[in-house]
């Protein structure tokens, strides 16, 4: 164990209907090698031994790929540092004696489950509305090399495909908009020949679902791009807008 001392202010909320409040948790023996979540593990261990209720937070892979962890730390989605998720944030970014505010994602479409854990199933429903290519596993397939894909297109599609659906874009957006998430999914598939046949239907359906879920509108503040742990570019929002416009204009 290390010797950093920190003053944590953590959001506690018993359930979706509870009002919730910030509570103080002083912690000591924090090592700079710990990840932020490991620091919370140490705190929770202590809380359980004292017989209290540990702090609930979502996490799973702890290597930045599952999109579960979702803490708003000192006013930033996934805390300080660029291109990382909360689980990839390490305590060496903080100093002995720091006060750290820890809150859940705050957005109308992401209700709190408990403490720092939120329900992000709205993203599932956006995906289900059109974030796919309509093919079955019938074995009736064409060779993956039958349609050559220019490397540039494949690379751009890949950049969009790195979205892990964590919701940092929504949490950080002053409007609670899910445009960066939706744009990443639409962009990935509309750049690849396999996704092109359904592009109009996809853009319309996913945007419609996004609005239905209660996400706000995009006003181009660009905050999402800055906080995205996968550095997904605003260009994808521009592409979604073009896809959506084209689909609307040519709708039958």
């Amino acid at each position, binding site marked *: *164990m*290390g010797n950093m001392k920190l003053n944590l202010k953590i959001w506690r909320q*018993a*359930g979706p209907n509870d009002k919730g409040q910030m509570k103080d948790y002083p912690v000591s023996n924090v*090592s*700079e*090698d*710990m*990840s932020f*979540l*490991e620091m919370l*593990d140490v705190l*929770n261990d202590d809380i*359980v*031994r004292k*017989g209290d*209720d*540990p702090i*609930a937070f979502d996490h*799973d*892979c*702890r*290597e930045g*790929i599952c999109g579960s962890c979702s803490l708003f730390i000192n006013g930033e989605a996934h805390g300080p*540092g660029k291109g*990382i998720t909360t689980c*990839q*944030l*390490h305590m*060496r970014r903080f100093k002995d004696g720091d006060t750290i505010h820890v809150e859940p994602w705050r957005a109308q479409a992401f209700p709190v489950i*408990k403490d720092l854990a939120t329900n992000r199933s709205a993203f*599932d429903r956006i*995906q*289900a*509305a*059109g*974030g*796919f*290519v309509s*093919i079955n*596993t019938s*074995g009736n*397939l*064409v*060779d*993956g*090399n039958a349609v*050559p*894909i*220019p*490397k540039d297109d*494949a690379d751009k*599609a*890949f950049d969009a*495909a*790195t979205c892990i659906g964590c919701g940092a874009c929504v949490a950080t957006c002053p409007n609670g908009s899910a445009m960066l998430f939706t744009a990443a999914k639409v962009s*990935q598939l509309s750049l*690849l020949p*396999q*996704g092109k046949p359904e592009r109009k239907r996809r853009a319309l359906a996913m945007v419609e679902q996004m609005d239905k879920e209660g996400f706000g509108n995009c006003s181009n503040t660009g905050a999402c791009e800055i906080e995205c742990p996968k550095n997904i570019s605003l260009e994808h929002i521009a592409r979604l807008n073009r896809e959506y416009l084209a689909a609307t204009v040519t709708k039958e």
Partner: protein
Amino acid sequence: MITVPAKRTYRLAEVSANIIDQCVAQGVPFARDYGGLLDNRSFGGVQVSRTFYARGQTGQQLLLGAYSALMRQVGKGAVQMYDRHEMLDVVVVDGKARGIIARNLITGEIERHGAHAVLLCTGGYGNVFFLSTNAMGSNVTAAWKAHKRGAYFGNPCYTQIHPTCIPVSGTHQSKLTLMSESLRNDGRIWVPKNIEDAKAIREGKKKGSDIAEGDRDYYLERRYPAFGNLVPRDVASRAAKERCDAGFGVNKTGEAVYLDFSAAIERYGKLEANVKKIENPSKEKIIELGRAVVSEKYGNLFDMYENIVGENPYDHAMKIYPAVHYTMGGLWVDYNLQTTVPGLFCLGEANFSDHGANRLGASALMQGLADGYFVIPYTVGDYLADDIRTGPIDTKRPEFDAAEKEQKDRINHFLNNKGTKPVDDFHRRLGKVMWDKCGMARNAQGLQEAITEIRQIREEFYRDVRVPGKNSEFNQELEKAGRVADFLELGELMCMDALNRNESCGGHFREEYAETDGPQQGEAKRDDANYAYVAAWEWTGDAGKANLHKEALVFDEVKLTQRSYK
């Protein structure tokens, strides 16, 4: 005669080519070459470039492809998803799997789900070691409960330890991070030749870059000239352990080796200088150009490393150490992926099939996708055909009552237990026993000790675990308690299996069974005459009293030989 395991693997090879086509069609952005065709690269255990990939996150992209295909079915209403639910038991009626008991993780409600068939796609059990590269939520509970309801458990001791992970930094460690195996394509693994140098590095008096080229021991290239840094994972892991145990480790704990990209940076830099028509480039220019190439290939991994370790891997060689990554063992299944309980199927890492004692790079993805996309759609239909007139399954039957009560009783025990220690405390202790005595190297004495220690931890766990809160809420400690209880039984079975197998093969290395001389000295020594079988364990009501069934491995067309990586 062709035995079932061989037939299954043959089928996997047959359908594997479809996987890439299927995933391309789903919109998975595989790497493409400039000609627009799919690109390939090399991987551990092979000497040719034949692996399709998506930068350093192939598995993640294949998963997202499968997720999008699933969400399409959810959108259509063909599949109903129960996220944030955990399966707690299988319900068996008249010898057939007829449903499950599940807990809604948000409300705590215990639910009954009736079914004509149950498919487990619940992943591996590497987290029995506490520290592994698995996600924190990965657990054995669904598979273990199926085992306790009659499904045999195949080869539980076969565990893959991956060589390229970030070393443990302290006791707070919650999981280990895998650095993609693709790094071994360009990185060279070494430790100092002189033990004094290793000691100086551990004490912080020297750095890796202070060690002259001639004083470095590229031990994989030395021991395995044909495969070099691309030997299979088990071989690379054991070689790292061997050097570190001998005192050549290069971090504070003595459990780390270098993965060095300086040679690759220089090589790529020279090529790039040629491409850019730079004549007589300076050493600095070469390194600058080479770093740009390496950054393009592995930039995200290098960034990840720097975040975790706090050291720039372009300036200092990376430090790595093996960590638990994959479990080849799992529920025994037949050719149709059906367990020994009719109607209960098991797919992917959760089953034992296809990889034997040692899985090669990329083939977990291959097996998981083949099982799900191309095998089960046909085999489950064959089973369901006989149940076409069965009608809905009645979840009010006494079998459901009994299974539900059992789970509720267990939950109540945990919540009402007036213990003193959190769940993780027991999990960490179990993990340490498993890692020390049933990990990269095992021996009979250690395994016997491990069994005794696991029983003690298990007994203490039920007596002294503290689970706060109540059932009717989002209670992550309660979730963990149930999972660790199952790991505490599984761990014992793994040790029993490792103790039973008096040979070394793949990921299972028994120190007593190594080649003592000849060109393969120190390598794993199999005993094909006595152990060419799958060990399928049957639960008999008590951990530690499982019955062993043997499924023979018969080879007609090929003969069993020792593979040499020298």
